[in-house]
């Protein structure tokens, strides 16, 4: 988990840390499974985030100490968690009212593909033998105010995950606001993918070559 496969760019932890820098103090946040979960380790000094887990807990805390977990205190990934002081439990319709009613500020999700119009595919490869399973992904992207994606820039086979059009089944159309990868931070705008920031040691051309749709440069050129 600590080693980074790419020769350059951010590690998984560094990607999570980079996302955390962009989350405002006081945000109510839902984190997907994988890299998004690591964000809880990198809350910037002086900020407080409240974590929502859609199975029915607002104020999710860290994993319990060894042997102190409870089978009925779990997160959406069905892993045992804790509740912070000030947490609340609630039934599913209330939990999804928080999501679908636009009460959550941000969700951070993984992705199979993101298109340059903001389309997200992250729930199914659509393969003939795949068991389709959607969970709360479609609710989150349809209802939460801001949707961030954090993902490796390319698949394990080196194919771009940022594309002109998703080939996998959509989770939602035009829903992604920002993408954080090992190589760059990219905003989804009306004009398409807009570079916000390059990871240290990464060039614009390096990112553009690995992006499956046009990449607009940073509007105000920096020293790089």
């Amino acid at each position, binding site marked *: 988990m600590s080693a980074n496969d790419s020769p350059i760019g951010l590690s998984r932890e560094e990607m999570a840390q980079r996302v955390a820098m962009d989350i405002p103090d006081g945000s109510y946040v839902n984190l997907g499974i994988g890299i998004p979960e690591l964000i809880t380790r990198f809350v910037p000094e002086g900020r407080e985030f409240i974590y929502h*887990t*859609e*199975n*029915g*807990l607002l104020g999710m805390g860290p994993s319990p100490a060894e042997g102190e977990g*409870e*089978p*009925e*205190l*779990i997160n959406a990934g*069905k892993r045992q968690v804790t*509740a912070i002081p000030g947490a609340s*439990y*609630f*039934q*599913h*319709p209330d*939990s*999804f009212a928080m*999501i*679908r009613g636009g009460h959550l500020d941000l969700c951070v999700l993984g992705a199979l593909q993101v298109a340059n119009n903001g389309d997200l595919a992250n729930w199914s490869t659509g393969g003939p*033998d795949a*068991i*389709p*399973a*959607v*969970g*709360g*992904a*479609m*609710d989150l992207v*349809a*209802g939460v105010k801001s949707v961030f994606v954090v993902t490796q820039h390319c698949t394990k086979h080196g194919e771009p995950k940022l594309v002109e059009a998703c080939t996998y*089944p*959509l*989770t*939602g*159309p*035009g829903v992604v606001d920002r993408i954080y990868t090992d190589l760059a931070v990219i905003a989804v705008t009306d004009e398409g993918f807009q570079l916000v920031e390059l990871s240290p040691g990464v060039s614009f051309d390096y990112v553009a070559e690995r992006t499956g749709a046009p990449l607009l440069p940073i509007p105000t050129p920096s020293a790089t």
Partner: protein
Amino acid sequence: MINKEVPSVAEAVADIFDGATVMIGGFGEAGSPIELIHALIDQGASGLTVVNNNTGSGEVGLAALIKAGRVAKMICSYPRSMNSTVFPELYRSGKIELELVPQGTLAERIRAGGAGIPAFYTATAVGTMLADGKETREFEGQTFVMERGLKADFTLIKCRKADTYGNLIFNKTARNFAPPMAMAGAVTIVQTECVVAPGDMDPEIVVTPGIFVNRVVQVPNPQHESVLVASGVSYP
């Protein structure tokens, strides 16, 4: 005199009939009424349509009911999990039907069913394959998809504490689907760790009011799916 307590899980589920729609509470193992599900396996009803977020794990609880061939159709949001093999195998061989529903839509369909609302509109799944063939409508410039309320012949849920009127409180994240399912079931059957007399539960903390509950059966030390699965238990 109202007393909803019944003496055994077997009596609690005795009248569940072949072809019934049964809502079963729980998200993963949290809130799963394992003892009621096992009683349903013993009882023998088949051809069931089961509504649950998942499809169980290992070969206990809901997974065991599916493995026993009693379930014709699952309505759920996430039919695979760690240690979930029973449903995937049956599904791939075409022996069980699946209606896949986004989790929030599933929760709201159940709530609507229990609240007498036949259908509602939601933004969830608009523009995806899960909205294919469904009616859509624009409100204030945004497209929404129509989803139907969902009711059941029977609901099986688990709680922490019940009184004999059927007022319920739950345990942490085990609450999940239980309150809306209690509303949506024509007959709602509850297993509870303890039963108290009316008045012994503070009305301020009642989560599910007794009007939504038909039968209460005490199961003092409910089993945990993860513990059973880890020790390789298979039911029956």
